[in-house]
């Protein structure tokens, strides 16, 4: 199997005339955790949303360049298929408030009109919830509404919902910025487990988090990919002066 799963080639993203992601070239290795960090407004979230074509849902948003998933350009694919292969978890936990925990996990199948036998659904729900270490906590309250859970549990439920679709890549947009420290560390531990089955790309505002959870780190600044390297290398011996300034806290 090829080791690169996602590859961006000269990727540019715009909001109207505003050029927010500039000529990004990056290769994401399979079954790894890649952190994308940078100051607010550096285009890191926009880049992430470009990977599963969520960027273009915003009116006036456009993109140029290529993003290859297993060598196939996602810009040429139908966005629906792209999003089935590349799952996403958002900044704020967003379980569907009108659905039960069970239905939240299989919401992807329901939305896409895929009918499954009950036994298979049960299996998917249990497996997905186990993968996010939530099964033991909620197995007796699967029929309760998803909004009944705590913030950290809700976020793990949202990860389970993405995992249930068996995507190849999982995108995380500042997944812990709305969570308390304990929930944050639970989610961070999950990343180590999840990377056995998936490739994780995590946008984070939090440098310590990037250092803790990732194999490789990308640093974005003013829409450019300034530096991309092994996380250890990046935090101990960055080559670019801007990376150095950011890591040492000279700007944020």
């Amino acid at each position, binding site marked *: 199997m090829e080791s690169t799963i996602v590859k961006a080639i000269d990727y540019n993203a715009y909001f109207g005339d505003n050029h927010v992601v500039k000529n990004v070239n990056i290769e994401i290795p399979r079954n790894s955790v890649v952190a994308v960090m940078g100051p607010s407004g550096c285009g890191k979230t926009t880049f992430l949303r470009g990977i*599963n074509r*969520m960027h273009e*849902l915003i*009116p006036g948003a456009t993109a140029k360049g290529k993003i290859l998933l297993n060598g196939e350009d996602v810009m040429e694919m139908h966005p*629906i*298929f792209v*999003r*089935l292969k590349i*799952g*996403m978890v*958002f900044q*704020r936990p*967003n*379980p*569907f*408030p*009108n659905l039960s925990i069970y239905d939240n996990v299989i*919401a*992807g199948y*329901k*939305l*896409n*009109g895929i009918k499954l036998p009950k036994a298979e659904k049960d299996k998917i729900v249990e497996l997905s919830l186990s993968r996010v270490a939530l099964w033991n906590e909620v197995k007796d309250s699967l029929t309760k509404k998803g909004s009944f859970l705590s913030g950290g549990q809700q976020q793990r439920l*949202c990860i389970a*919902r*993405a995992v249930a*679709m068996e995507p190849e890549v999982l995108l995380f947009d500042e997944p812990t910025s709305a969570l308390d420290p304990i929930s944050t560390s639970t989610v961070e531990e999950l990343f180590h487990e999840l990377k056995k089955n998936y490739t994780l790309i995590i946008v984070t505002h939090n440098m310590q988090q990037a250092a803790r959870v990732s194999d490789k780190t990308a640093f974005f600044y003013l829409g450019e990919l300034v530096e991309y390297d092994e996380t250890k290398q990046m935090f101990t011996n960055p080559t670019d002066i801007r990376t150095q300034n950011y890591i040492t806290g000279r700007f944020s």
Partner: protein
Amino acid sequence: METSIDNNLITRSENILERVITSAKIRDAVKGIKRIKRSHRQIRAENVFRKTIVIVALLMVVLVLGIMLTLVLQSILSIKTTGLAYLWGKTWDPVQDIFGAYPFLLGTLLTSFLALFISIPFSFAVAIFLGEYYPKGWLPNLLKNTVELIAAVPSVIYGFWGLAVLVPIVRSLETKINVAPIGLGIFTSSLILAVMIIPYAASLGQSMIKMVPANLKEAAYSLGATRWEVIRSVILPYTKSGLFAGVLLSLGRALGETMAVTMVIGNTSLIPKSIFAPGNTMASVIANEFTEADHPVYLSALIELGLVLFLVTVVINMIGKRLTKKFTN
């Protein structure tokens, strides 16, 4: 060397701090005096203003209660004469003082619900179009203003339009399906009403749909849902009580609409045999016969009709308001 610079900095910053504090103190003192001088006048004005507002507000309540009381008092004669049979009596014959409102109750409910049934697909389509598909741009603005204009057109104009355009169309339709080609009747009234009530469900529905949190829609999109699937599985379940409230507001409007309906419904006191038959609604009977009510019981019976209509619309509106409130919380 370094320490001396630091010391210098500290003394300088202390000086600045002191100056800031003094100027703030002076400013506060000056302000305080001004405030005291102003406040007497303000308190007086405030009291007058508050009393006026309270009186005006209470006046509104008294007005509505007064209207209701008038209706009740003026209906007493009819209630005494006919009793509860008024509601299901099938004959309305003022000459013989027989007053049964059933044909008009039926006419009102038939036209209103038929109108609702016809208008819902249009008002929901407009609501989804404006709320989700194209919230911004010249086309949605045009559509939004047009739909709002529908509510602003005087109903007598709809009546004219109905007579000039709808009646001939319905008549030719009736010829084709072999019913008496009158043109006027329940069906024609429902068509007019359907147009007139579109804005109510559409504008409430549109604002409810706009309130669906973006992160829920994004969650569905990120799972590979199409736009239609997002609308069906996220937006509609989330907004269902709001949409229902809009429908109820439309219904309330349809129940009470008078002028346009009176002009095209055919005005007969017989029980309509089909939706193509002419009939009457409670409102259209009142409008038509009020000037002819030449004896007290007749007049009272018409006013009782108004009371029934009033109560029905009040209840419908209350349910609608409650649902909207429940939804927005």
